[in-house]
């Protein structure tokens, strides 16, 4: 179990996108529930608590994924077995993609009202 946490383990090939997926489900579900329980006034356009919350979540997850990407690169540099280095580099790429993907998918919160 311990070794699964090491960034050189191939389980991290799917780590970044799993985190991305969790974030994605969380914002979609959060948005839907927030809109059905407490829809904000349409007048306030995109300046609502919902947008703020989703935006913050996006930034936090992006930061986390970027950090993991960076940590993977470091792990790859230090790895002794070629296989470890290999997987860590690919994981780093996927973490980086996930970070970019998070930011990209989250971007519309700054231009669109939440529930209309």
């Amino acid at each position: 179990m311990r070794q699964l946490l090491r960034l050189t383990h191939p389980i991290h090939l799917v780590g970044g996108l799993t985190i991305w997926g969790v974030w994605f489900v969380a914002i979609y579900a959060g948005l839907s529930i927030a809109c059905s329980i407490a829809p904000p006034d349409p007048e306030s356009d995109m300046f609502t608590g919902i947008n703020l919350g989703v935006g913050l979540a996006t930034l936090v997850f992006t930061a986390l994924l970027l950090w993991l990407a960076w940590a993977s690169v470091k792990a790859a540099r230090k790895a002794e077995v070629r296989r470890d280095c290999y997987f860590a580099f690919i994981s780093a790429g996927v973490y980086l993609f996930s970070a970019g993907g998070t930011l990209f998918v989250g971007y519309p919160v700054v231009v669109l009202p939440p529930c209309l």
Partner: protein
Amino acid sequence: MLGVSVVVSLVLFALWLFTFRRREQPQRTPREEQRIMLRWVLGGGIALPVVSIVALLLLGAPTGRSMIPLPLPEGEAELIEVAGHQWWWEIRYPGDNGEPDVVTANRLVMPAGEPVDFRITSADVIHAFWIPRLGGKRDMVPGRHTVIRLQADSPGVFGAQCAEFCGAQHTAMLLHVEALERDDYDAWLAERRAPPEHNDEFSEAREAFGEHCAACHTVEGFPEALIDDDVAHDIVGPDLTDIGSRPTLGAGILPMEEGAIAYWLMHHQTLKPGNRMPPHNHIDAETLQDIGDWLETMEP
């Protein structure tokens, strides 16, 4: 956008085919190969799509925004309710301050030159409301009311249709849309709001209508006493109050000409097989003719 896409694809195809044409290959070290590969993958595999999708998103988000029914700076948009039925359209103009709604079918009259909010829903299965010339489509989902904002810039006639497959006669679920100048629209609506006159001229037709049709079809001001309540009905048919003024019958099946309604009443199951109106084999042709003649006079 289309131009860029086509150029990009053509260049890509040319590159692929070019690799088959080259005969001589220089000897490369693995390091050189790695560099060439990275150039292709970073340039074509990463930069190209990233630039394209970022551009698309930046471009697309504001366009999407313009379709949202946000509150208008002044006043409210005209609200028209549209409900899909298998296979016809119910149009409803909500009355202000307790006035009754104006209800019609298969002909949508809307004001031009201003945004109109359509509040759409469905009475049975999922349909989709689509006036291609005015904008995108929206699904009509039973139990939900969705608002879509459309604007006809100038008066005119548009075709509209159901765009989500909704059963046997999905093909024949057309809607006639007329955009009128605001004044004409107001005049039309006022005329429709006025209670229709019912004279005694077609008394036989009206009696037959009460017996055979009125359980499903509403005609405003039609005397309740004439309606035969015993007829079983679990569906609603189009409101017929102003049927004479509609350009087509059967949601786009027949043009409205003299005698068209009677023809439709006799042959509707061959003209539009599977439609929800039961066949009229048990009613004699003369009665149907009478009903048709009467209904044709029904104009606001």
